[in-house]
């Protein structure tokens, strides 16, 4: 009552709006990092080049598969869900070949098509049902079922489990 008498109506509006914005700013950060997308490259059966940009929502729109496994970078067992890599690659009708994986920090690894068929890794976007931020090794992490195939560690597959994937290039 007293407040209304002391302050003019114009200032009152400005004050309310300002407070609202401050409140919003507190709740929503000023700038959020947009998850960097993934580039999928390869060749079609007729040797025409294919290049697709995929966001994590695109990946999430495929039928999802889950892998529960323990791994050196996470404490305990974790469940990862995403698209089966072979499903993804065949969906875009990429000609089979060596799969080159590149991460955001330029780290690279190679995966044989046959090994992919054998071990069926998952291109994961969720970790225990949560989106993976870049700091959580996301947005895209190629996960092998280490618990199901324990010999993968000795065969050097740990370095094929590339996280923060930036590009997948299938070279026939």
């Amino acid at each position, binding site marked *: 009552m007293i407040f209304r008498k002391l302050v003019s109506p114009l200032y009152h509006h400005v004050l309310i709006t300002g407070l609202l914005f401050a409140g919003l700013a507190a709740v929503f950060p*000023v*700038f959020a*990092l947009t998850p960097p997308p993934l580039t999928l490259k390869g060749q079609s059966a007729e040797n025409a080049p294919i290049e697709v940009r995929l966001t994590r929502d695109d990946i999430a729109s495929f039928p999802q598969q889950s892998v529960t496994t323990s791994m*050196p*970078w996470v*404490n305990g067992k974790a469940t990862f869900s995403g698209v089966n890599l072979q499903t993804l690659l065949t969906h875009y009708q990429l000609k089979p070949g060596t799969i080159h994986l590149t991460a*955001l920090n330029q780290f690279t690894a190679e995966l044989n098509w046959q090994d992919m068929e054998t071990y069926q890794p998952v291109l994961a976007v969720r970790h225990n049902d949560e989106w993976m931020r*870049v*700091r959580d090794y996301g947005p895209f992490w190629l996960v092998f079922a280490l618990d199901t195939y324990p010999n993968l560690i000795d065969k050097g597959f740990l370095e094929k489990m590339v996280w923060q994937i930036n590009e997948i290039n299938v070279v026939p």
Partner: protein
Amino acid sequence: MKKLLFFAAPLLIVFTFVSVSSLESNAESVSKDQNLASWFMMQLGDEYNEFIYQLQRYEAGRADHNDVLLQYEILLSRFNSIQVNSQVNRLHSTFGSLQSFNHHYQIVKGYEVSLQQLTPQNVAELTLTIKDNYDQLMNYALKTFLFTNNVLRSKLDKFISLRWLIHASLFSTLLIGVMMIYLLMKESKTHHQLAMYDSLTGIHNRLWLNRKLKDLEKGGKDFAFFLIDLNGFKEVNDTLGHGAGDQLLKTVARRLDNLTHDGMYVARMGGDEFAVIQVFPQSVNQAYVSNFLMNTLDHVLKIPIQLRHRELSLSASIGLSVYTPGSKSLSELLQEADFAMYEMKQQFKAEHPYPITNLEHPAPDASQGFTKRQ
């Protein structure tokens, strides 16, 4: 003393091997840990560097907010991957680095709010702070994972002192080895000596004699060989018992041994048989010497032997064979002496059909004829 050595030596060798291998594995693990730590820190340093680079690009207007935030996320993920890694626990225990690492991780996490509100105006100051922290982290890593770290230094000092210990034990093992070899050689010599003597009489035995004969043959020496057989010894053994027989043999052996001098040797062949060798000096009348010795032996052996309550008179059959280089083989020498002795023995038996040994107590006046008694 010997038993102690035989026990200590293998123990020392085992200890040395165990120490050396544990030392090697220790050194290897420390070296591996250093390499691992360096690799982790290098990766971390790379991402941290890249992050600062993006901030500088942002300041120069060549990168946007997204680029900076993205690199920040990557840096956080790198910190996290080191923290979660199981190998890192071992590293922390080696280098004592847990607290510092976590501290730096917290500092980096603390940038988040400032980064969210990043503007071209506040970026310069933030970049300076971050660069400062980066330098601190890298300095810390350099000091910790290379040699100047105290924890590491104390481990390496232990390493060095252990090495001294191992060298010492290796040396003493060697020393003990040498001592053992020396002792073994001495013992072998002693055994060798023992094997050459007759246990009852204490004079040389047949084994020694055979060696001696071979040596003389090789040396091309001229010598006389006497084979001595005691007459009536068997009867003494049978009637007076082996104790008396032994006593008798000992006496004979002593007498013969007393005769020995340079170039003359005595041995017990076995049973009641003895052998004497007389090496002929240069240009001596061999026949004369042989004869002389023959008589001497005969005389010495005829001297009565005093047993406990008896006196015995023995005689001996002596066979002689003379050896000159090339004249005969050793076995022929022995055979000749043997035949000669046998002939004498037969002659003796013919002359004395009954045993000659006097088994009666000597008559009180009989002692007068004898001046020497053995």
